[in-house]
């Protein structure tokens, strides 16, 4: 049974050391105090003093950083505005993704692999490049303003880059495949004779859509929403490239606490709160997936 032990032991140990232990360290530093030293926090565990050193270490831990987070307006605003931006952009992604997924599921069978490929291809292309592409489109002298002014729709350029609107566009654009694929998967499995039955029973096409297709697509829509919402909440690249100085998102705040302010204890506390904020949607997502698996069995 040595082989079995190695098989389980190696990945287990790897994840323990490089995934679980680092979280312990984040928690520890979140409970420590800021100090002007290297590394910039106290206390550090000092084993050379034996048991009393360990005791002193635990005695020096406190919730001060979390109080600091709750007292400073900036963090409340950052959490709320991350939630708002993630919710709005998830909804917009659903609005944009549903018609595409719907049309893909209705397309002729032999087109579908190619259409799938077209949806997946951007996902393999660098995330950073896809966000960057929008900088040239949304800037004041960018392509969108040039096009709109050329058409005579607007007289002066719109300010789009470095606003929340640019962040919404960026999130919808980069996460659209995550919405399209699960919705498409549920719609493709749908039995179209159900729609014919509804129409035979006197439903108009629109009401057949609302009472048959829409409820059947719900699991895919829920899965897609979680797949967009969860990463959008902790997003860093999009708000820092497309958002303005007024765009507050936790990912960006954490980054700045760490790299600009060098306040590791506060950055760690921000990380812990972000994690707590994510636990609820993650558990709901897992439940939804579980239910789906059982329903498909």
């Amino acid at each position: 049974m040595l082989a079995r032990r190695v098989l389980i032991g190696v990945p287990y140990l790897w994840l323990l050391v490089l995934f679980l232990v680092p979280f312990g360290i984040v928690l520890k530093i979140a409970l420590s105090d800021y100090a002007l030293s290297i590394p910039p926090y106290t206390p550090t565990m000092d084993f050379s003093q034996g048991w009393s050193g360990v005791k002193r270490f635990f005695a020096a831990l406190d919730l001060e950083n979390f109080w600091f987070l709750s007292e400073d307006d900036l963090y409340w605003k950052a959490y709320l505005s991350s939630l708002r931006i993630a919710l709005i952009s998830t909804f917009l992604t659903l609005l944009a993704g549903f018609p595409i997924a719907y049309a893909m599921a209705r397309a002729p069978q032999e087109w579908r692999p190619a259409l799938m490929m077209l949806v997946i291809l951007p996902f393999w292309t660098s995330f950073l490049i896809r966000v960057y592409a929008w900088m040239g489109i949304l800037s004041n002298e960018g392509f969108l303003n040039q096009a709109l002014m050329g058409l005579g729709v607007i007289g002066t350029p719109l300010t789009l880059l470095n606003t929340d609107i640019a962040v919404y566009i960026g999130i919808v654009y980069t996460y659209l495949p995550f919405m399209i694929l699960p919705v498409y998967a549920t719609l493709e499995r749908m039995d179209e004779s159900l729609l014919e039955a509804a129409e035979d029973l006197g439903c108009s096409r629109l009401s057949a859509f609302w009472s048959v297709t829409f409820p059947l697509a719900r699991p895919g829509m829920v899965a897609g929403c979680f797949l967009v919402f969860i990463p959008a909440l902790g997003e860093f690249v999009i708000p820092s490239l497309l958002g303005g100085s007024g765009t507050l998102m936790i990912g960006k705040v954490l980054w700045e606490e760490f790299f600009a302010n060098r306040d590791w204890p506060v950055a760690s506390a921000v990380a812990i709160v972000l994690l707590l904020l994510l636990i609820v949607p993650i558990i709901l997502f897992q439940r939804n997936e579980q239910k789906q698996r059982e329903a498909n069995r």
Partner: protein
Amino acid sequence: MKRLSWFNIVALTLGFAFLYIPMLILIVYSFNASKLVTVWAGFSTRWYGELLRNEAFLDAAWVTLRVGVFSSTIATVLGTMAAFVMVRAGRFYGRTLFSGMIYAPLVMPEVITGLSLLLLFIAVGLERGVITIVLAHATFSMCYVSVVVSSRLATFDESLEQAALDLGCTPWDAFKSVTLPIIAPAVIAGWLLAFTLSLDDLVIASFTAGPSATTLPIKIFSSVRLGVSPEINALSTIIIGIVTVGVISASLISKRAIVRQRQDEQAAVG
């Protein structure tokens, strides 16, 4: 054959236009002669030339490639092992924790993963550089590999392996000559996924890279922060080109492999 309704045609056209026009603009304007990125001044490959002479970008590309190859290879080995544990190992002490640790990195915000790994490396006194980025990338991408491989393993017919064992194979031989060839497409797909995740990663690399190692995304990010530049357009075009060729050929190869496997199976039955 059914006809697509007008609504569906419009939805597909607008949808794919939205997905592809930004990248097309990027590609077209990488051949712009002007330094002003939004004003067209004629066709030129000038920026590609400047890019190839830019030592900093070439160094970063080399670091990124090395990190990608090493981290995705480690991730593929560990992720495939983890997939076997998840599908085959049955019950063992700490299984819940194990599967939790496999799925958690998939939903973990990158800023948290990056921060926590950096704090670990500092705590144990590991000097930051290529090695720390490789360790970090291998850790989060092994979870993606294990998801891809375990979905293939779940549908794998174990009796094939049993037959090999009955015919006198050692477990290792049975794995090598029966199991591995069958799950190979999933393992390769896992490696490719890990490799692209590694090439693409900015946030985790920024935390875990020291001053001695700069990856391409870090370099792109720091120059893009100052605004759009034609050199970055050229670099993006090269990356988009490589990815497109890679994804399309990978999908053609896997399609052919599936067809051949089916033919083999039919030949074996007949």
